[in-house]
């Protein structure tokens, strides 16, 4: 049961990855790509992490650290990239 759950979570994360990374190739604006990418990367990677955590519960400190740094860093990086790219657009 736990094994199945972890595989399901990892597959969900990979589906999220593909869904959010695919618009990167198109010709949309940077902010649109940033939004889908940050949602997909953060949520997908966190779901993969939880799947791994269910698989090997003995190594939880490292995986929890990875989860926390994913959640914090990816949101902060999203804000910083949006700020930097949009203020450049205002100058032009």
């Amino acid at each position, binding site marked *: 049961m736990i094994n199945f759950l972890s595989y399901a979570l*990892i597959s969900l994360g990979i589906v999220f990855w593909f869904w959010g*990374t695919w618009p990167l190739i198109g010709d949309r604006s940077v902010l649109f*790509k*940033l939004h889908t990418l940050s949602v997909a990367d953060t949520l997908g990677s966190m779901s993969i992490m939880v799947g*791994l955590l269910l698989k090997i519960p003995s190594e939880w400190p*490292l995986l929890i650290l990875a989860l926390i740094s994913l959640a914090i*860093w*990816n949101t902060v990086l999203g804000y910083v990239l949006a700020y930097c790219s949009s203020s450049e657009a205002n100058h032009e």
Partner: protein
Amino acid sequence: MNWILITMIFALLIPIYEAWQDEDIWQKMLAFASIATKTSVLILVISVLRDDWMIGVVGVIILSVGNASLMLLAQILKRMKNV
């Protein structure tokens, strides 16, 4: 668990392609941020697969330090554009 690794590498190829073909610097930065996250998660999956926690520690370090360095790089790029 090999198919997981193969599909993850395919997902990793998309931002690599984007970083290669796009000239706009912010699109490149986006692609690099995506590559950093995806590779570190890939490293963690490999460390679980091989049950080797030395690799896992490297993945977690890349996850935190790699994103921080990308943030600093974005700030520097912005300042360089403004000068």
